[in-house]
């Protein structure tokens, strides 16, 4: 069954996850010395594996497509210990500025296209994950897996001068927000009760309907960004 979440469903999911944490925390806290809350910081390295339909609309030659440059940003997270095996992670980062580059013909007319940075936008992309940690809590090095949901919205959407040369003038860029599943695998090392370091690799589904408006000429495409994120970070528990 395909998991289909809408933006409207996101609060429900978060509430459910939060509610679960409260119930499980109550049960686990009595016999557990590991603090329940952990804040973490680190580095996100995001790799995009973009799959987009060719841009369609007036005056668009065949084969015009887009790609994204990989990016890096700061990671911040909050972990809530639910049981000795389950954590809830709320992951977010400083919204990275992504650079959209042209893909397809080398030029549109005489305007350079393929490889040119045609647009930039920032991503607010928090994720909530329920993670299962292997081994007992007394083990310092614990691998974990997790599943959850990602919500992505795009803002500061700017079409660059090179992009405007391609679209034909000042252009408004719209990207619909995305809600999709996210999965992660990671390894956490906790030498004591307070500090930990970890690394994880996540895959999420982030889709959007892209629309440009240049003097009333509308061009559209559907983009699956398929981001994969490597996070290396450290946490402090309290």
């Amino acid at each position, binding site marked *: 069954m395909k998991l289909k979440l809408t933006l409207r469903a996101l609060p429900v999911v978060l509430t459910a996850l*939060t509610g679960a944490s409260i119930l499980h925390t109550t049960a686990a806290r009595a016999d557990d010395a590991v603090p329940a809350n952990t804040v973490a910081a680190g580095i996100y390295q995001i790799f995009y594996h973009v799959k987009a339909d060719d841009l369609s609309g007036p005056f668009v030659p065949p084969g015009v497509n887009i790609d994204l440059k990989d990016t890096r940003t700061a990671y911040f997270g909050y972990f809530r210990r639910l049981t000795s095996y389950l954590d809830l992670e709320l992951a977010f980062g400083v919204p990275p500025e992504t650079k959209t580059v042209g893909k397809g013909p080398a030029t549109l007319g005489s305007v350079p296209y393929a490889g040119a940075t045609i647009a930039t936008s920032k991503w607010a992309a928090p994720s909530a994950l329920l993670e299962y940690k292997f081994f007992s809590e007394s083990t310092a090095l614990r691998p974990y897996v997790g599943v959850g949901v990602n919500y992505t919205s795009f803002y500061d959407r700017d079409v660059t001068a090179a992009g405007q040369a391609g679209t034909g003038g*000042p252009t408004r860029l719209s990207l619909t927000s995305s809600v999709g599943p996210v999965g992660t695998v990671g390894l956490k090392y906790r030498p004591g009760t307070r500090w930990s370091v970890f690394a994880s690799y996540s895959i999420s589904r982030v889709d959007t309907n892209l629309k440009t408006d240049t003097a009333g000429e509308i061009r559209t495409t559907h983009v699956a960004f398929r981001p994969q994120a490597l996070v290396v970070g450290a946490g402090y528990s309290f």
Partner: protein
Amino acid sequence: MKRFRSALGAIAAAMLVAACGSDTQTSVENPSTSHGTLVENPPVRIASLNATDFQTQLASTGASGQQLLQLTGSPQCGVDFYYLKFYTLGGAGEVTMSSGALMVPTGAAGTCSGPRPIVLYAHGTQTNKTLNIADITNTSNTEGALIAAMFAAQGYIVVAPNYAGYDISTLGYHPFVNAAQQSGEMMDILAAARTALPKTFAASTTDSGKLFVTGYSEGGYVAMATQRALQTAGATITAAAPMSGPYALEAFGDAIFYGDVDIGSTIFAPLISTSYQHAYGNIYTATTDVYSTQYASGIDTLLPSATPIDTIYANGQLPELALFNSTTPVVTIPNNPTLSTVLTDALAVPGSALNPGIPNDPRTPLFASGFGSPGLITNDYRVSYVLDAAGNPDGAVPTPVAGVPLAATAPTQSLRKALNLNDMRTGPWAPAEPTLLCGGDQDPTVFFSVNTQTMQAFWSTSPAAAYVSVLDVNATPAAPWTTLQATFQASQAQLLAFYESTAGGGLSPEAAEEQVIAAYHTNVAPFCSLAARIFFSQF
């Protein structure tokens, strides 16, 4: 629990901060619908080609592109193609959006930027409602490529409407050869283009103040009507070059109704009747007043159309050639048997025993092909028109009068009255700036003698005569057009030889000549356009 809520709050706050920020916006939309208003400023640039890429693109379109380049010369400038949307008025004064092209020369050469002259261009008749002359990415946009190569790539800013009724226009018809509407639309797009020009990517290319007006076929007529309207408005025109246009509309209509059926007449007929019906409301009560029952239904909304014209022919919605019925109508004028006989004979199929036509005129078989059964226009309607033409004759048709060939003074038939009203001889007007009328004397689509030479004769007296010159590309080569005329005639000879060759189908000389004549109107266009550019370059 409290800490957990605080952490969520921090995340929410971070997201809220993250959600702020400005996005790039598109062009400013002008809410006014006054005619001449540019809708979006800056307009969208459809394509930008530098001189090298433009030459490569033209050359890649095959022999036609290479021949065009031979005529136009290599592009000296790049060209930016902008798609203008503007408001104009329809044939009955309806507010409608229309569209067109603004082609801006680009490049470092001095002739490609800075103050540059504007060529205001009107295109020829198109059946394709989706026509967008600005869309250089469409390989079927040959006229757009022609004017871009001929004018824009040589340093002229080009402004050209698609016309109301085409492309995005919501007008349900095209105001075909409606002088007031079409000249008004030309002035509207000129105003819109002048508004757009400073906002384009090539803002360093500016309007020098020189204005040249030209156009081909229907556009030749529109160019002349625009020249008149601009003069009337007190605007500055540097020079004009109407080309192969139906300027003397009444005389042209008379020639056709008498039986000289031009190529394309079954397209022109519904365009013109619909245009004038919307403008004047008196062409017909029902379309069956004009058209055979086989074609009458829906003909008032048939053209222009997104459906290819060949499909329209194949669907039986329009005859390809047969404008009139091949069964000759018998004209009966009470108490005038002589005139009745003369007119009956005149309405017979050209080349027939009753109406043999001019001996050895290669156009006679073409005229004859305009007859069939049932024919697009009814015999009754044809007779009603011809009776008016006979009773209120035009000065140029059927026999040009000595001196200035005036239009009829008192036409009574509604179509003929409309043609008279829109005839360029109507109204106290004559060119007051250098004007070149270009065409080819064998043109079977828009007759040169009836239109161009009629206007030449009409303006043969002072002071207009000093401004008006005529170029017949098919005349014996003579200065200052020796090379151009010789080149045109050589191209016609090559085409004739091609049709007679195995590669061209191995046609007989007569059949090959018919093929050449059939394509004549189209083939004259680039030569007259070159003549217009050479003419404009003097000023």
